[in-house]
Every structure is written in structure tokens, then in C-alpha cells.
């Protein structure tokens, strides 16, 4: 096609773009994906029966603050990778804050517990399935982000994929909290984080293939 014709054709369709269009687009993808994950938890895994009670305790909020702050840090990275001219990644160190805080909490918890119970506390009842469920619940959110990226312009595809996977994993872990009855900080620190890391690795693996434009 002639370049002049192409320009004429492209110029037929010039809708106004809001200032916060990138954030909006990402927010929609994340919200839709999270909704699907939440419905999956409710239908397939089941909401924990004592959720109302748990939400009045500190443990639930410990888990939510951990996963939520990881999600925020990851989304900050995703937003940067969404633009082609993201020169240098900033705010990555934010990720270290929730991890450090939870580790401190975990150590305090271990200090209060007799060593004989450490293993049981660390493995809980669901360590074998927890990372995989987080990974599975991350998929709808990851797909939501892939949809968002279709109008965005990442140029570092592997890093963008990893960030998207990380965000999806952290949000999935947050959703998973409405099912998971585990209470210990070291459980969350290990098995939740492992699930989130799996999602980030999958994102890094698939990013170059799925985010191409």
C-alpha cells in the first residue's frame, strides 16, 4: 500500500485519548482478570467458611497487606514497561519492603514458637498446592494484562512479561486469601511468594512471544 493512502486511512479514526489512558487500560485488564479469579475461587475452591471472623483478625490483614503491597510494586513496574521510552526502571526496590517486613514478622513468630512446631508451621496444611493455586489464579489476571498490552507499547518484552506475571501473581495471591486458611507468616513468605515467582517466571518466558507487536 502507498504510504500516503495509509496515512489517509489511519487519519479516519482519531478518537481523543485521555491523559491517563495507559493506567486506565491496565486497570481494566487487571480488574477483569481479578474478577474472573475471584469467581473461580468462589466456585471451584470455595470461600473459607470463617472469612468474616478471619477478617477481624490480624493474620488475614498480614496476608493481604503483603500481597497487596507486592501487587502495587509490580503494577508500578508494569506501568513503566507499558511505554516504549521507559528509559530506566524506577521504584523496583519497593518490592523489597513487603518481603522484608514479612520476614521480620516470620522471625518474630518463630521466636515465639517452640522449635518442634516450626516445620508444621512452615508447611501448614496446604504447602503442596498453595503455589500452584496461586499460579493458576494468576492466569486470568495475566490474560487481562495481555489484553491491556495490546494497545500499549512495551519494548522490553521479557521484562514486561515478567512484571505482568509478577503483578498477576501478587493479585492472585490476594484473591487466594479468601480461600486459604493458613495463618503463619513464614508459610505466606515461602509458599505464596513461590506461587508469585512462578507466575513472574512464566510471564518472563511468554513475554517475548505474547507481547510482540
Amino acid at each position, binding site marked *: 500500500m502507498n504510504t500516503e493512502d495509509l496515512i489517509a486511512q*489511519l487519519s479516519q479514526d*482519531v478518537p481523543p485519548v485521555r491523559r491517563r489512558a495507559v493506567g486506565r487500560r491496565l486497570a481494566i485488564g487487571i480488574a477483569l482478570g481479578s474478577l474472573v479469579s475471584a469467581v473461580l475461587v468462589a466456585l471451584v475452591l470455595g470461600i473459607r467458611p470463617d472469612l468474616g471472623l478471619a477478617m477481624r483478625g490480624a493474620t488475614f490483614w498480614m496476608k493481604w497487606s503483603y500481597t497487596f503491597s507486592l501487587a502495587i510494586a509490580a503494577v508500578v513496574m508494569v506501568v513503566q514497561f507499558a511505554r516504549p521510552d521507559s528509559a530506566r526502571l524506577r521504584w523496583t526496590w519497593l518490592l523489597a519492603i513487603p518481603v522484608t517486613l514479612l520476614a521480620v514478622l516470620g522471625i518474630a513468630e518463630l521466636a515465639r514458637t517452640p522449635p518442634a512446631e516450626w516445620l508444621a508451621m512452615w508447611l501448614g496444611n496446604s504447602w503442596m498446592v498453595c503455589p500452584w493455586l496461586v499460579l493458576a489464579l494468576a492466569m486470568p489476571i495475566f490474560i487481562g494484562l495481555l489484553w491491556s498490552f495490546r494497545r500499549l507499547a512495551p519494548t522490553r518484552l521479557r521484562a514486561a512479561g515478567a512484571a505482568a506475571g509478577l503483578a498477576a501473581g501478587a493479585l492472585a495471591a490476594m484473591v487466594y486469601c479468601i480461600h486459604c486458611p493458613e495463618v503463619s507468616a513464614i508459610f505466606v513468605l515461602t509458599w505464596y511468594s513461590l506461587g508469585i515467582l512462578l507466575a513472574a517466571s512464566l510471564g518472563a518466558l511468554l513475554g517475548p512471544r505474547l507481547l510482540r507487536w
Partner: protein
Amino acid sequence: MRADEDVLHGLMVDGLGGDAAAHAALLRLLVPVLRGFYRRRANGADDDIEDLVQETLIAVHVRRATYDRERAFTAWLFAIARYKMVDHFRRVRRLHPIEGLEEVLLAEDFEPAAAARLDVEELLAILPTKQADMIRATRLNGLSVAEAAKAGGIGESDVKVSVHRGLKALMARIQGGAR
């Protein structure tokens, strides 16, 4: 009109506001800018360059929401143009791994040149030394016939004849495809 940052930025912002005429004007101004950008970097055929220009125009159009009005327009544009170039090379040659775009980008100009150089050296190896040396001096290293003659310690006509015979032999070799 010279397409400078201020003009392009202004048109882009108007286009983002929904002004189709400004958007069209912007895309039109980008054509020579992008042609220049790709010509300098990709020594491909004009068709390839034009493909790249069009692909980039489409990307600029489809992904215009990713432009931040507070930032430099040309930085945004060239980031897209670079991405499209790397993507294009990858598709055409299927040679580069998909990660590390920046590194690939830096090597992009060097690599084809190096590969071509290797091929030439291989071919030159089949020629008599004098012919190979004179071709190297005059055609690859850019010496004039007089300089090459001086450097090789032979007459100017000898240089010309050597280069001529050498090139002819190479041509026959390549066209025959024998190896």
C-alpha cells in the same frame, strides 16, 4: 516545514485531543523523518525501508495512547522506530534471540558488516596474493590506486590490472556458484 520536536509534539498533542487533521499532518511529517532514520541504520532495499516506515506509522497510530504529553515526542517516536527495526530484522532473518533488544540494536550495524567481511575474505583467499592485496587495498580499505601502488611497491597500471583480473575471477567464481 522542518519537522522539529516542538512542531511534532504540538501536532501529537492536538491529535491526542481528537484533531484528525493534526494527526494526519503529524504522520505525513514523520515519513521523511522515519525514512532517514531507517536508511541510516538498516542498509536494506527501499521496499524494506518503506515497509518499516509504514509499520512504524501504524504503531504510532494504534499505540498513541502510550505517549506521555509531558515527555519528548522524538524519544517516544524513536523508541518505537527502534523496536520496529529490531522486530523486522528478527522476522526477516530469524537470527537474533528475542531478548536483549538494546544489545541487539547496538550490534545491528556491526553484524551484517562483519558477516559480509568474512565472506569477502573467504573469496579473496582463492585469488593470487597480489590480486587479493590490491582488491583489499583499493576496494575495502579505500586507498586510491596511487596509494595502493606505493604501498605495494608496484606500478599503478599493475594495480589496475590486478584489481580488474581479480574481480573478474571472483565474479566468475560467484556466478558459477562453484565451491
